[in-house]
């Protein structure tokens, strides 16, 4: 038998090569579009990305997001946005996009040396 790992959550599942992973286009086209979901946990906090879901339109995406991501008062406000409408920087840590801030240590307060005796600074 193929490798079976305990990490199937509610029980062991096989992880060998006989388990296919490649999606087929037919099923993908049938489904509703993918939405990314952002929740404001409470007043005073930013909206934070919590996951995604599929929904036919914006309104149903909000309703589904409420049922899926805020069953225990986890939020006071929800944003949904179609995944295809998000433009992202490359996630690579070596991304040149972030290089301009890499060598500007003088933007941080710790760059400046102040004698211990000076108060409130």
């Amino acid at each position, binding site marked *: *038998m193929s*490798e*079976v*790992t*305990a*990490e*199937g*959550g*509610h*029980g*062991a*599942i*096989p*992880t060998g*090569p006989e*388990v*296919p*992973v490649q*999606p*087929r286009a037919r*099923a*993908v086209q*049938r*489904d*509703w579009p*993918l939405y*990314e979901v952002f929740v404001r946990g409470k007043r005073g906090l930013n909206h934070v990305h*919590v*996951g*995604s*879901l*599929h929904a*036919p*339109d914006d309104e*149903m995406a909000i309703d589904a997001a409420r*049922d*899926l991501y805020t*069953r*225990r008062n986890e939020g006071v406000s929800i944003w949904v946005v179609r*995944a*295809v409408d*998000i*433009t*992202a*920087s*490359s*996630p*690579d*840590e*070596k*991304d*040149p*996009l972030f290089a301009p801030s890499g060598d500007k240590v003088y933007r941080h307060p710790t760059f400046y040396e102040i004698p211990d005796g000076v108060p409130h600074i």
Partner: protein
Amino acid sequence: MSAPTLDRSATGSPDEATLQEQFDATIAADRRIEPRDWMPEGYRKTLVRQVAQHAHSEIIGMQPEGDWLLAAPSLRRKAVLLAKVQDEAGHGLYLYSAAETLGADRADLTDKLIEGRQKYSSIFNYPTPAYADVGVIGWLVDGAAICNQVPLCRSSYGPYARAMIRVCKEESFHQRQGYELLMTMMRGTDEQRAMVQDAVDRWWWPSLMMFGPPDDESPNTAQSMAWGIKRHTNDELRQRFVDMTVPQAQALGVTLPDPDLAWDADSGHWRFGAIDWEEFRRVLAGDGPKNAERIARRRAARDDNAWVVEAATAYARKHERGAA
């Protein structure tokens, strides 16, 4: 998330050896891999199998207990069970969401489940003939799930780890409601106590099988552990579960159906008898008491509700055109 990426790199893309090095360094530093990071194909495929079939287990896992929604003995018990079953649907969807960040697709995964090309936990192929089964599933099955899900909160794959943190918070309610249900029945009549014991007798061994075959039959464990997508071996997790559960069984007043169960003072662990792996393989392969029924019901849910998917899509399109 399949968002387009800005490519403003002047140097072009790094070669595979460099990418592998960066990946290895991230893992070595116990930091998280995120969706559009480069990752080895084996890592991605193993994760898709793990996350997708974990999702399937949550979704199919609604059925054995769902059978008791209308028959639960009070409004309170119905409300609790409904909340629990709804959580399992949520767990499935968090996990499909994580699988999609790896290039999988929810509708396609559902097809693969229904066609039997991907599996789900064998535990859900056992029947739930008595109401005590609801309590025992919460106590033992969700208890075992907690054992293997808590370490997954530190999975090296970010979206999976984040989904598991959410799941684990909810899982503790599942186990406690089950245990409380059993405690209530144990304080009841002889008939109720017998019902609890019978359910424990039926679920104990399948619960131990939830951790999968022993380590010497799991040749890829080392690779999965090196990748940080498996944190403990199957046997370690099983032992942890037994050690946690035996005192809970004693407090409840039930007997675990294993004559070899004995405290080993030297190791500080409970020793237990041999597991029937033949049964595990048979049930996982599809020959359990309820496999056909579970899949048939999932297939019916997809096919009978296809018109809703189509109607909502048509409405959304019309609405979009009208607004433009």
